[in-house]
């Protein structure tokens, strides 16, 4: 019985596995979906993974901002790194900086680290889970706008992740204004 309850709480993972299965086959048929769900459940039972605590509240506007800004970041930073690769005769000035994140959730830490390392120009060298600290290797300090600029950039990514996925309590805990006020401020800026 306990097994079934645990399986039931893991439905997002099973749905994701089923979606992958359907995408790999390439056509959406009832048989494919059912086979994917069965296989997903089988994988979850046979190869159990430790549960990642996620009790966040996804927020659509936050997610849209996160994704759009992520792609903008990737394109801008790719151009910067490409420029440095072609600038013969000079080397980038790198740095390893400490970024103390404001949230304490494992999942938010992981997603922030993941996005930071996908954006060119920063690599997570070390992550310290207890204190929620990331150590980021910055490719070029001048491009990143100085050491403080690079740190602010990582924190900005974290802020977007928090607004996209965290619960209201986590937002308050991180010392950020609540989502509602964010929306109001945006609309005031637009109307002004």
């Amino acid at each position: 019985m306990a097994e079934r309850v645990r399986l039931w709480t893991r439905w997002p993972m099973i749905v994701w596995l089923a979606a992958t299965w359907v995408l790999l086959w390439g056509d959406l048929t009832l048989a494919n979906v059912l086979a994917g769900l069965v296989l997903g459940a089988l994988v979850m039972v046979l190869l159990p993974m430790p549960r990642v605590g996620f009790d966040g509240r996804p927020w659509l506007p936050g997610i849209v901002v996160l994704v759009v800004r992520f792609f903008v970041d990737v394109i801008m930073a790719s151009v910067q790194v490409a420029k440095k690769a072609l600038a013969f005769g000079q080397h980038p000035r790198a740095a390893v900086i400490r970024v103390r994140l404001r949230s304490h959730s494992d999942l938010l830490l992981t997603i922030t680290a993941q996005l930071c390392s996908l954006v060119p120009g920063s690599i997570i060298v070390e992550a310290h889970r207890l204190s929620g600290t990331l150590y980021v290797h910055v490719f070029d300090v001048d491009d990143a706008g100085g050491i403080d600029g690079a740190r602010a950039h990582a924190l900005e990514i974290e802020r977007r992740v928090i607004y996209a996925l965290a619960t209201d309590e986590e937002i308050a805990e991180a010392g950020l204004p609540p989502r509602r006020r964010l929306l109001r401020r945006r609309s005031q800026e637009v109307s002004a």
Partner: protein
Amino acid sequence: MSPVVMWAGGAMLAVAALLIVARIERGPSMLDRAIALDALVASLMGGLAMWSAATGRSDLVNVLVVLALVGFIGSVTLARFVAVEPEDEGRILTPEEVRIHDARLREALERERDRSAAGRDSAAQRAHPEGEQQ
């Protein structure tokens, strides 16, 4: 797709692959080679994508899926091993050296066991996990 695009893109990828192979040859460490291999896989994927577009063979897309999924395993494995390896990596040890190394390791393990048997406060260790990092 026009053959001009094919040739121009193919030439760029070929030059890229050659430069990457030069880095693989030069090293200096295994990790440099690992990331160069990653980049080689990336250029291979670009080439496969162009080939698939040029010939209209959509079955090559499956190869791309597999490469995207398993491409990182090689460098992760290498990084895993390099992290515990001593400085003078990239050299195969002689049997004599292996025996000495093993003996030293066993000694260290024994000492560790003695120490934990002596009842060292394990909670203090857990409070400072940074100590493990070196």
